[in-house]
């Protein structure tokens, strides 16, 4: 097969078995939905216990983070996540896992060059570009407000 690189690359990509997208989407939808429903249940529980709406929301996020971190530590998270995919990745649980797994992995290199330097290796890009996008949106929001709603708010 004396083909050029472009043809070879196309041949290799064409014959490569694709990820089962439909199955992955369905399990992500179900598992992600289940996590969010559980989160909602927790929030209702916190409100029922007498917390304000704001505090109940914050405590719900914290609870989901805590659960994800514990499951990561016990080595359960990745076993579940290889089936659930985006279902566990997209909610706050995925972020917690990305941070916790990096920390666990680098603990043998110590607190500073290990955990300190590596804890955001996976989650870092989300922080950098998430916060940057927030800042840009803030500027847009400010300008739009200044132009269209003079003296408003």
């Amino acid at each position, binding site marked *: 097969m004396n083909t050029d690189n*472009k043809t*070879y690359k196309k041949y*290799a990509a064409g014959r490569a078995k694709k990820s089962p997208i439909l199955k992955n989407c369905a399990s992500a939808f179900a598992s992600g939905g289940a996590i969010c429903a559980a989160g909602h249940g927790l929030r209702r529980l916190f409100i029922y216990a007498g917390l304000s709406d704001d505090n109940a929301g914050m405590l719900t996020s914290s609870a989901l983070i805590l659960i994800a971190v514990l499951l990561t530590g016990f080595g359960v998270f990745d076993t579940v996540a290889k089936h659930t995919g985006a279902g*566990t990745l997209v909610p706050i649980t995925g972020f917690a896992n990305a941070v916790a797994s990096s920390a666990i992995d680098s603990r043998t290199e110590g607190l500073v060059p290990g955990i300190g330097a590596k804890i955001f290796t996976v989650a870092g890009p989300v922080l950098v570009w998430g916060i940057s996008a927030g800042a840009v949106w803030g500027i847009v929001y400010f300008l739009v407000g200044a132009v269209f709603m003079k003296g408003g708010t």
Partner: protein
Amino acid sequence: MSRLPIRLEKSVYIAASASAAGKNEKEGPLGDCFDLTSDDDRFGQDTWEKAESEMQRLALDAALGKAGYGQDSLDAVFAGDLLNQCVASNYGLMSFGIPFFGLYGACSTAAESLILASLLCGAGAKRCAAVTSSHFCSAERQFRFPLEYGGQRTPTAQWTVTAAGAFVLTDDREDVRTDASVKAIPRIAAVMPGIVTDRGIDDLSNMGAAMAPAAADTLTRYFSAGADPGEFDLIVTGDLGREGAEILRDLIASTGRDIRRNHVDCGLLIYDCDGTDRHAGGSGCGCSAAVMASNILSNVRAGVLKRVLFVGTGALMSPLTVNQKGTIPGIAHLCDITGEVTK
């Protein structure tokens, strides 16, 4: 001329070989073939890097024991692994006090070290060793994601093998310890260094496609120099996995030759790939090192396999250059191993 095989003028024999492997490998189809295994992949060590070093030490120690050689009698050891600065090899083999050459050939290192050790043996050294390892946990942290990170792999992705293989070579047939069960002594008849081959693959999850063209190049050069694929009982590639193995057979078929009957891939031998997380099969330089050092060479010694072509395949991948929009070149080194019947 430089693209032709190197035929060893002086006979070089593999006096002994030994392997160490992790839990998944022990539970695989070749589980019983490995000399030493660890049920937690740690080999009694507190870091994954030390565990990999320990695998190398255990493998070489076992191989020396089988050959009946003292560590002082080795003229040199060629060793490599996947880690930066070849730390698994440096630290693992330090205690032997043997003159040391550290190698990086990605997953082709088992064949690369065998080639260099055999050439040195043929050039005046009496006894040399070749040792290679990879460890899923140390490789995963260096090349991909943290171990507990919850992600999904694509079907073409391969699984880094936790294993090490050691080979002890000698230039003297009388120096090889044999018993009644040994029907043949493995002899390295010819070697052929690989050429870096880049066909533009840039998918980190499809190493098989990156390595297959290199394997095809090396094999085609070897066959063109006068060997027929049918002469070999087995053509063993390192770690092409399911994807790469099928591509290699296609590429060789397009040159008018057929290796479908006698081609096997260590990455497919070491795991039962169906219904497990191994996807397209095993990878990592410990994969071919351990499979060759255990199952394949045992069968050569038992007289079951008379001639074996071993092609160690490596994807010379760096996450850094791939992020810089670079491609993944492959390389494949070849050893022609013949079982020389004992008297």
